[in-house]
């Protein structure tokens, strides 16, 4: 426990030190402050940006797109993954294809989504869906395969009903892998939606960041980067925390 606290303190110290270096580099003029506004300026800009109605609206737009894409991709992907994993023949046919589809870069298909969907809401959701679904499928197959055959045999030989097997064997075995999958697919999803917004869009926070970059508004740009990074890390840590809570189920 003591060492755990020390490690946490050291991590906080590293983050603080990074911000301090950033502040010093900019304040002393080693780096041109117009290219790298100081950390304190950036953070105060961030506070001011969060007050702005337009930024809030952009955040809402992005959040809606991310959540919609996620809500579509996860059930569909999980269903496909489950069907593939439960059938040996299907798995043998589909797996190499899926791994291939998974390993090719999705972002180069972004222009295709613009040609089909235009630059609106549906294009972002479509691209987010497309960049998320393969990882969901593959993680689900991994999760199903992580259920141990011996556990199933034991459950069956003690006369467990299918519902009992589903809730007492499948779910606890799959949960840690599924949570991990959820976390990683959210990373993919967020990256996909923000990339789509930066590439061609009228609103959304990614579009806003690209605009700040084009206009050399470094303070706003860095504040936006810090904001997105903080949101992504916060979500990631939240799911990881849940993961550790559930890890005593891992077999």
């Amino acid at each position: 426990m003591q060492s755990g606290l020390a490690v946490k303190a050291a991590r906080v110290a590293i983050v603080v030190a990074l911000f301090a270096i950033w502040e010093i580099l900019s304040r002393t003029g080693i780096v041109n402050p117009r290219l790298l506004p100081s950390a304190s300026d950036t953070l105060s800009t961030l506070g001011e940006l969060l007050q702005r109605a337009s930024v809030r609206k952009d955040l809402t737009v992005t959040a809606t797109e991310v959540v919609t894409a996620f809500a579509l991709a996860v059930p569909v992907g999980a269903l496909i993954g489950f069907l593939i994993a439960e059938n040996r023949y299907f798995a043998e046919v589909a797996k190499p294809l899926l791994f291939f589809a998974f390993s090719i870069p999705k972002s180069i298909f972004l222009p295709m989504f613009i040609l089909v969907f235009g630059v609106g809401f549906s294009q972002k959701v479509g691209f987010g869906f497309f960049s998320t679904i393969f990882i969901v499928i593959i993680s689900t197959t991994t999760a199903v395969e992580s259920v141990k055959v011996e556990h199933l045999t034991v459950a069956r030989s003690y006369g467990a009903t299918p519902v009992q097997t589903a809730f007492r064997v499948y779910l606890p075995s799959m949960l840690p892998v599924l949570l991990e999958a959820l976390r990683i697919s959210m990373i993919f999803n967020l990256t996909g939606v923000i990339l789509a917004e930066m590439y061609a869009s009228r609103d959304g926070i990614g579009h806003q960041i690209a605009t700040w970059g084009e206009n050399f508004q470094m303070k706003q740009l860095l504040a936006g980067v810090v904001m997105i990074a903080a949101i992504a890390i916060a979500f990631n840590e939240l799911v990881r925390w849940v993961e550790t809570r559930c890890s005593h189920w891992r077999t």
Partner: protein
Amino acid sequence: MSAATLRRLIVISLIALWEILPRAGFIPELFLPSLSSTLAAGWNEAGEYGHALAVTLYEVAISMAFACGGGILLGAIVGSLPRPRILIMPMVSSLYAVPLVILYPVFTVWLGIGSESKIAFASIYGFLPTMLATAAGIQTIDPQLLLAARSMGATLSQRLVRVIIPAAIPTVLSGLRVGGALVIVGVVVSEMLISSAGIGYLISRYRTILDSPHVFAGVLLVLAMAIAFNAAIKWIERKAAIWQTGTRAGQDAAGEVAPAALQPAT
């Protein structure tokens, strides 16, 4: 019908559908131009695409040197020392959650819209997964191998050359594969966003004038690049397989890291 045959049939019919559906008018040519018109478009502008490919390959090569060199070096250091590992690894993996695309505007402001900003962005894009994979690979070395080497009086350099490096090679290679794929994505994406040369730029330019066959020719070219890179790493992996001295447990752990956590995010 065996699984492999069915798979081949699926691939062939997908390619056939790509030709037939747009020709028959089920899908507008704007959304999906037929395979033949895509190839024809690419062939007619071969010079332009060749020039763009040269620019992109140059950027990819330099970024790959930065991303993979730096990633493997730092990953090896962090992975082999327990203290920094406990301290830094969780931080690096939460950093991995950040959509790095948002950094690209910062690089364009700092370095302009030429090759430098692409190289900087793609290097950072590919660096993290390579580092994570290498650190994980060093970790999965069976401690018994190290113990055996030490008890037979191997020096540090002997242990490094004879045990650590051969045992880590498979994981490092899988990190290299992911890192390299990400570098290609990073370069192409940054070219698509803001640039004046390269395949990504061509894709974006033809997209703005709604010239789908040329867009798809560019997309095909990038795909070919990614697939060729993948095949090259697979070939090296096979060649290096004789080096593989890690135990099954080690490989299992390595396999656990590789598929999900370290794949190219978009």
